[in-house]
């Protein structure tokens, strides 16, 4: 086009009376940011992974005899499709969310610094508030999308590849497929709340550091610290404020009875973290000066150090006080839970072995202790591997000899029981049709219902 043409085609400004200042709606800002997000490779790759990983895992469980029995529901991941999905939920909560929040939310603000496009954005009519909300909400939607996709695909893949067998709950109860599906959907839905908090954390890293590297790695660093704390902090106070605790709350849905209070607390914790991270991000962005690329590196280095020190200090403090205050991991609570779980699993084992429910219920009583067990009273508290429980048939006649089981109790209120094969039978049993099944009493998991 020639210069002359350019002159001719520049339109005259409209009459002043017709001009009004206008702003885009928040919806526009969200759509613009999401359009940018979805056009980038990381989110596309992440979405592909969200589809592929559950399918590959389900197929792996189907064709392989190895079971990840060190994880809740892992030992049933090759037996029930619901357990397959729950195992993936556990893994996604532990690491997947941190990776997703880093790749999506951790980059959504920092990428503007990396590309030098803040000045392009901020010279349009959208306010900083709109741009902030647009980016934060788009990032959250991205994280939700990944979470929902991996949830739906894991349920679908689990049911299609493994099958819809009833699920063994965390109190040893047998959960019928319809009910299990509902609980599974609720578990994935509840996970959206802490996932939102992680997205907000990614946003905070992104805004504060102005660095894609810090934004992406930051949430993962926090997840590693939280995983460490997850194994240490058994005190109610610290657990109630830990960002990771809400991810564990789905456990209560699979215990009997359900402790709804834990769900409410998880909701509050997630919302408080989301609000704190979002408010801090907004405060930082609002007061930021866009002075040009030359002013950024010094701030970035300083911020990187500040963030690292903050994470380490907070993690150290939480680790130090992790066992302070009351804990639900008491011998009394454990004995009650183990007794219920064992009792239920005896019924399940009978059903699977005989093809029909037991006519009578054996009355059991359990005593638990850390270290040497005393048959008279519960003793001890806290997480660890040194727990033993003595499970006794309380019938006065025809009673079974007491069974001593070893427990590993985790700080999140769940435990794994290893029972002696001499007392509960071999790893595999046989049903009336001669088919092999996994003996639910051989080793089992349970939760107190208070994450």
């Amino acid at each position, binding site marked *: 086009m020639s210069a002359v043409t350019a002159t001719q085609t*520049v339109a005259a400004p409209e009459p002043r009376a017709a001009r009004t*200042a206008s702003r885009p709606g928040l919806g526009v800002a969200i759509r613009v940011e999401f359009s940018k997000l979805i056009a980038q490779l990381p989110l596309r790759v992440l979405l592909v992974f969200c589809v592929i990983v559950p399918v590959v895992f389900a197929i792996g469980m189907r064709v392989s005899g190895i079971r990840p029995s060190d994880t809740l529901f892992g030992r049933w991941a090759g037996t029930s499709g619901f357990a397959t999905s729950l195992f993936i939920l556990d893994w996604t909560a532990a690491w997947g969310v941190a990776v997703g929040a880093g790749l999506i939310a951790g980059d959504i603000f920092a990428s503007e610094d990396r590309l030098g496009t803040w000045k392009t954005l901020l*010279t349009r009519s959208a306010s900083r508030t709109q741009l902030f909300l647009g980016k934060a909400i788009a990032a959250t939607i991205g994280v939700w999308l990944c979470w929902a996709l991996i949830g739906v695909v894991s349920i679908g893949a689990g049911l299609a590849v493994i099958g819809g067998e009833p699920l063994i709950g965390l109190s040893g109860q047998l959960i019928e497929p319809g009910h299990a599906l509902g609980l599974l959907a609720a578990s994935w839905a509840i996970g959206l709340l802490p996932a939102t908090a992680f997205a907000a954390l990614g946003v905070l890293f992104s805004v504060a550091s102005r660095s894609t590297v810090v934004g992406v790695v930051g949430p993962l660093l926090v997840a590693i610290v939280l995983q460490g704390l997850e194994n240490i902090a058994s005190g109610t106070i610290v657990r109630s404020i830990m960002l990771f605790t809400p991810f564990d709350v789905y456990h209560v849905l699979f215990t009997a009875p359900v402790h709804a209070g834990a769900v409410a607390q998880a909701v509050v914790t997630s919302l408080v973290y989301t609000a704190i991270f979002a408010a801090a991000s907004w405060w930082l962005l609002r007061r930021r000066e866009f002075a040009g690329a030359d002013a950024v590196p010094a701030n970035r280095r300083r911020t990187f150090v500040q963030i690292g020190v903050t994470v380490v200090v907070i993690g150290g403090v939480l680790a130090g006080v992790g066992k302070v205050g009351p804990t639900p991991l008491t011998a009394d609570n454990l004995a009650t839970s183990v007794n219920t779980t064992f009792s239920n699993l005896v019924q399940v084992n009978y059903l699977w072995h005989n093809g029909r429910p037991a006519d009578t219920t054996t009355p059991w009583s359990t005593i638990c202790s850390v270290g040497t067990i005393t048959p008279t009273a519960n003793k001890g508290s806290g997480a660890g591997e040194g727990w033993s429980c003595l499970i006794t048939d309380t019938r006065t006649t025809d009673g079974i000899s007491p069974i001593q089981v070893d427990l590993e109790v985790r700080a999140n209120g769940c435990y794994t029981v290893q029972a002696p094969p001499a007392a509960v039978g071999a790893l595999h049993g046989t049903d009336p049709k001669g088919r092999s099944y996994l003996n639910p009493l051989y080793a089992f998991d349970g939760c107190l219902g208070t994450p």
Partner: protein
Amino acid sequence: MPEDLALETRALTKRFGELIAVNALDLAIAPGSVHGLLGRNGAGKTTLMRMILGLLSPDAGAIELFGRSATPGDVDARARVAGFVEEPRFYPYLSGRRNLELLARLDGRADTRSPEEALELVDLDSRGREKVGNFSTGMRQRLGLAAALLRPAELVVLDEPTIGLDPANARTVRTLIGALSSRGVAVLLSSHNMSEIAEICDRVTIIHEGSRVWEGDQAELLAAAPAPSYRVWTSDDDQASAIARRLEVAVETPRRAATHTITVQGDEGERDGFVLALAQEGIAIRRLEPDVPPLEALFTSLTSPRDADQPAQNTDTTEEIAA
């Protein structure tokens, strides 16, 4: 009642730690004028433009846009302002057209120009579907101009808009700026290209170390500029050079070409005297051309370190323009 100024800054100041980037700067731009901003690197031009566009908060002073106070976060006050500072940046993973589409959406108004129109204005319509990551510097520069032209702004702020452009595209941009001005759009333009500023700007402000050291229109520029110097080629350069030295109009300059030896500087009378002296000695002038354009001479004299303390020559242009 006088029309509102498109832009007025009063005692605008910005500090970065100890550095005063912009120091109590007054600036006024009338609608439809093209205002050039000159200064050495680091003089404060871009910082000033960033404050006008709302990217930086002033530490003191005020910005008014079309008679309305424009505080840093006030996007409504800047609804009639467009432009860019430094090299325009876009999303490299999107096409030029898609970049403009998204930016237009963020303007949130119905009267934006379509991306196709904007691309056509800067001669990028045939490359609009390519990813910006593949664009050359010049293409990104033109895309920046297209982004500024998306909305019908009445003040366009352009930071070195022709840098990186080939002569033909630079000409297109200059023509565009002229067209905007002729339709009542005020343009604030920074450039290191003196001839460009002299060609398209109605008024010029020279900034040195954050302060305005000169402001005026083209006529005032010619009046304020130091006596112009000329390069002279004659039939006898050695004798002509001796005459120039005798008349004290010779300027010592490094030898730039084998055929050129003389540079003279003086007012009109001194130059006439030199030419007549050459004629009396039978020396023919074969070629004569300005050595330093007036604007460059003025710029150099005002912004060279030895003149850093020189006060601004005209201090209240705001009232002058408003009147």
